[in-house]
């Protein structure tokens, strides 16, 4: 599985939400949250996106909210860099270049609940 983690800072006076993300390397990108289902932690799409409160942060981190990259068009290796565009509820968007790291957390935690895992 491939997910993007980041810290978002909102220095503004109104709450803002991360509503979508795109990247040329992924066919689909979704905003995910972790939830308890039948006694197991699974991830699912996060309704309404990821809120970044005014004057505060949102941390996208392992076992928490994250941006899921699905339908990868190319294999990603640790050490690669991939472009990502984030879109926010205020209509703004931000382009980032993010490095690819090896993931050290157990991948089973990130099995999607609906579809089978598409490991690269």
């Amino acid at each position: 599985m491939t997910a993007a983690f980041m810290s978002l800072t909102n220095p503004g006076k109104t709450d803002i939400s991360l509503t979508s993300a795109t990247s040329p390397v992924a066919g689909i990108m979704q905003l995910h949250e972790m939830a308890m289902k039948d006694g197991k932690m699974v991830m699912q799409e996060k309704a309404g996106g990821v809120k970044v409160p005014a004057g505060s942060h949102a941390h996208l981190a392992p076992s928490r909210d994250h941006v899921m990259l699905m339908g990868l068009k190319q294999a990603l290796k640790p050490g690669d860099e991939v472009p990502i565009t984030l879109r926010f509820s205020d209509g703004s968007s931000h382009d980032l270049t993010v490095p690819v790291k090896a993931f050290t957390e157990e991948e089973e935690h990130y099995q999607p609940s609906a579809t089978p895992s598409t490991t690269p």
Partner: protein
Amino acid sequence: MTGRPSRRQLFGYAGAAAAGAAVTGGVVALGNDTPETVVVARDIDPYGDHQPAIAAASPKHAELVALTLLPSTDKAALGRLMRLWTNDIVALSAGRPAPGDTAPELAVPGVALTVTVGFGPKVFTLPDLVKPRGFSEVPVMSHDRLQPAWSGGDLLVLVGADDAVSVVHAVRRLVADAAPFAKPLWRQTGFWNGTGADGQPVTGRNLFNQVDGTGNPAPGTPEFDSTVWSTDGWTTLVVRRIKLNLDAWDELTRSEQERAVGRKLSNGAPTTGTAEHDELDLEKRDADGRLVIAENAHSRLSHHSVNDGRRIFRKGLNYVQDDGATRESGLIFLSYQADLVGQFLPLLARLDAADALNEWTTTIGSAVFAIPPGFRSGTWLGQSLLA
């Protein structure tokens, strides 16, 4: 699935992405109604013309990791690693987990965490990369007993903080994130106490009980700047792992110990003076006509007045290395200078030839690194070399 480590998948990560307006760094908000008690945030700003740890007070705890580049790591890959580390450093310095950290609670603010990154000689043999002026390896000295286990390296990361847990955590992240590019060659852990009983900064002591660092140019002075920084903002770092023979040292009388350096153990003052920062009187003789600061005294031989004005900026770390019940003690000697060849090597050669301290010290590790300038928001470590 074959050929891949199990339980390892890939993920991308972004550092700080700003939603809405500009990114702001760590913010300390002091409202008008703030009472007298103000928390002193000891986070050190990771941004600046120079990597910030060099001119900052010595950390209480530090770890150095030297890494070897993997064969596939070329100039472009090294640039990717530097962008990744820059991002990690910004987060860790503020006490925030580096994105993707699986132990995020171990990142805490207020511990003065710093990271310094350097490039070993091999980096400058990669195509298109130009070696900084005055950067070279240190030749083996006659008293050296170098062990490969403590020598060399293509990259250096030096992490310091006032808390050992924070150091270990940051090192673990930085080394893990470097895995696609470089693997550790050696690690050295050290400690230093630069704080007096009253909480004020003092010159720390090495394990010989000597006040160590008095003769340094003081950060913030023109002397410091000309000693340490080259015109393009780089510096060089020499790391020497020096074993101290404490058993033999302890057999000396106090005055023999003081004579070896020419400074007093009580406060670091020259044996010709009374206060720590008194100037050495290199001409002074005792009643028998003997030089008070001996010909072979360490502080005489290394003093800039007898070395054509050459200075270096030293930052030691004490170390202990245990093997079961046996303990080795020593000094991780760190020396910063703009021009390694012009400033450091002549001093080292002189001390190797004649220093009184040689009887109780043995250098067992040696490495050199060119230290790139600092970075600012939107730029990254080593960008001027690798972009």
